[in-house]
């Protein structure tokens, strides 16, 4: 679910729309989705219905669309906190899942990630990652253990 090319640290953006646009573009570049504007629209629609800033400096913008070729999580760690609706956010996990070709396996990983984000130790490890490579490694190892 995690890929080196979709983990970013030390980033700066002006608002949540820029973050969503950036991560969507990167996901498209890595062939996770086609017609990125459709996915982006789905994510923005979801944000409009209900902010995905869940507290704990975490936001989880997400969208479900058949323009998603393969489920993915794009991770972005900001240099400093940024306002996201009524919350302050530093960790962004953008999730994409195909609308009709979801696999139980992917959904299980997403449920695991969601639960993990509620754990202080997990957030601490993410926050303290020194670069994108070590953050990717941390997430990948946990994901692999979870699959076994």
């Amino acid at each position: 679910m995690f890929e080196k090319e979709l983990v970013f640290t030390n980033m700066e953006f002006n608002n949540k729309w820029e973050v969503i646009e950036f991560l969507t573009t990167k996901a498209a570049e890595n062939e996770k989705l086609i017609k990125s504007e459709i996915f982006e629209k789905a994510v923005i629609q979801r944000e409009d219905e209900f902010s995905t800033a869940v507290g704990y400096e975490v936001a989880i913008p997400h969208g479900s669309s058949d323009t998603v070729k393969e489920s993915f999580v794009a991770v972005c760690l900001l240099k400093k906190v940024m306002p996201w609706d009524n919350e302050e956010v530093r960790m962004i996990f953008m999730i994409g899942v195909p609308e009709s070709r979801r696999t139980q396996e992917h959904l299980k990983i997403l449920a695991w990630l969601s639960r993990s984000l509620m754990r202080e130790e997990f957030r601490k490890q993410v926050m303290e990652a020194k670069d994108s490579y070590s953050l990717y490694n941390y997430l990948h190892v946990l994901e692999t253990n979870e699959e076994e």
Partner: protein
Amino acid sequence: MKIVGITACPTGIAHTYMAQEALETAARNRGHQIKLETQGAMGIENEITEEDIANADIALIAVGCAVEGIERFDSLQIVEIDVGDAIKNPTETIIKVEESISS
């Protein structure tokens, strides 16, 4: 006390499970037993049975959408909360449950 309930959200891929985790931790930290059914993209998991309900003191429904089988909890006092609020303030949510049972 023994708490049973449901967590659910519209997309069913994230908030449902965050709320379950956050509320379980908060409830256990305050010395309660808790079992929460998730109604998410993977369907119903950790299903609340008749026996669970018979042994429970109160129901906690933390959802952001319509859920299935809410009538199962008819015999219990029900505390309803928005799934997003439950994630942001799990301990306060459990305190609310405690207060509603003692009132």
